[in-house]
């Protein structure tokens, strides 16, 4: 059964390729949300297996969205992987892939690395 992934990122071009590449693996169904303000509503609505969440977005930053997701019963169990353009690869590439207890992936990211991470977080 394919995993259901919600991608929240304001970069439309980036999410276009991300959706294509993830779905090309045959393992995932991907829904993209380019509006940070709609992220919570979409998550409640879709109940994905995993959320890929951009940190730096206009309006609501990714961390705030993640915090709010933890407060709703429908979404609090959904695992989150942050996407960031600012964390160094060697930091995210440490054993746990965690910083401050949360999973990170640095852009630009190769799709097979991202897949490894998704499988680790949501086996």
């Amino acid at each position, binding site marked *: 059964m394919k995993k259901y992934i919600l991608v929240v990122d304001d970069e439309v071009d980036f999410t*276009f390729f991300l959706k294509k590449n993830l779905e*090309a693996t045959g393992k995932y169904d991907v829904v993209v949300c380019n509006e940070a303000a709609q992220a919570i509503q979409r998550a409640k609505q879709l109940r994905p297996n995993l959320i890929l969440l951009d940190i730096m977005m206009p309006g609501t930053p990714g961390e705030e969205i993640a915090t709010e997701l933890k407060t709703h019963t429908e979404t609090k169990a959904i695992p989150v992987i942050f996407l960031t353009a*600012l964390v160094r690869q060697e930091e995210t590439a440490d054993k746990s892939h965690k910083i401050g207890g949360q999973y990170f992936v640095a852009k*630009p990211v190769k*799709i097979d690395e991202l897949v490894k991470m998704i499988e680790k977080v949501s086996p």
Partner: protein
Amino acid sequence: MTLNSKLGLSFLVVALGVGTVGVAWVQRATIMKGQFDEFANLTTPALVALGQIKAASLEMAMASDRASGGEPPDGPVQEPAAASKQAMEQARAKSLEWLMVYHGVAARAGDQKLAGVVEQAASALTERATALAEGGTQAAGRSIGVRRSELHDAERIFARIIDSAIAAKVAKLKQERSAVGRSVNRAVRLSLAAVGLFVLLAVALGVFIAGTLARPIIKLSNDARIIGTGELAHRTTVRSNDEIGTLAQTFNQMTENLERTTVSKAALEKAYAELQRTQQQLVQSEKLAALGRFSAGVAHEVKNPLGIILGGVEFLGTRLPAADEDAKTALGLIEKSVHRADTIVRDLLKFARPSQLKTERVAPEELVNGTVALLTYGGALKQVSVSTRFAHGEAELEVDKNQIQQVLLNLMMNAVDAMPSGGSLTISTFSSVGDGRPGCRIEVADTGEGIASEQLGRLFEPFFTTKRDKKGTGLGLSISKTIVESHGGAMSVASEVGMGTTFAVILPARAKGGRG
């Protein structure tokens, strides 16, 4: 003793000395004058009386001679015998009268013996004169010539006695007078000597007091000069119970206050140097912070498109016909460029957020040898020979080993790049003391082409590179410097074109096994 009492005492000593000598001298002179006056008071009437006695007695004898019809006296007038007798009587009475006077005077002067002799001679003369003039019982049986000669004998004896008495009195008077003179002279000499002595004493006392006044003042003035040169720990050793002692005490107190409130020049210079260093660090860290903010912005703006490109390349890769090798190569080149751009941006981000230091104790030789091993295994050395020299003694570093190794690796790779046709790379360690702190100095020296002096100053600037083929990002040295400075260390470079370049990393160190 206060200054006033010191001065008072010296004046008192001089005044008392001179005064005492003066009074003693006046007293002594007065006494001697009194003694002399008393003696003269007795001697003068005696001399007058003796003179009168002599004159009267001789008058009496001459009158007796005339009355006896003897040779007429000088003079034109022949005197009658009765008149002569009368004159003789008068002279005799006068002689007796003065003998009485002399008797009295001699009794007061204690001259009774001499008075007796004079009286005896005078009475003998009177007896002979009477015998000649009147031819009484005593003259019986003797011729007038015999009596006259007897009178003359008596007259001579009397004259001799009275003359010698007068002479004795006069001699005594002279003697007394010269004795008084001698005494006065002696008194004057003694007085002069005493006055001289007291003047000397006063001068000595004056010198002593001036000394006790001047010495501490000179000492104080010297001490003030020493303190004036900045030796604020100096104190005066002047101790005295007078006003100068109080001054010295106040002086020391003042110096102590000054020392408490004044920072020494050396401390000030040190603080200034520290301040300058801190300011430079602040400027540097502010520059870094600004660069960091800038880098973060650039990174975000660049990484997103890089992400899109990479995503696009991977997407296209899945859609390419398997046989289109050229297209695959093209995609490979694009992906390589994405990674290259990503590397530069990652390097930039090292400025934005220097990683947390994970420090551990490590020996300098371990760090150096480990880095040399990395370089050797990586095959980067080519035709370069490497040598190490360790002279850091007991120094031990407490550093983030990975980061410092990254710095050393960066320096060594730069060195190798500077010697494309071979050369020697020397890594040396020294123990150093910089700013009074123990340190370890690691030098990486090459025998390469060297760096022109106008470029040396810019070496640590971000994006500055001397690598002509644009092999480097120009960030290696500036990141190295940031890492070393975040360890509290410093970096420097010295170079000579054609001779080579030496980079130095100075890191704080401690003695091996010392407590952190």
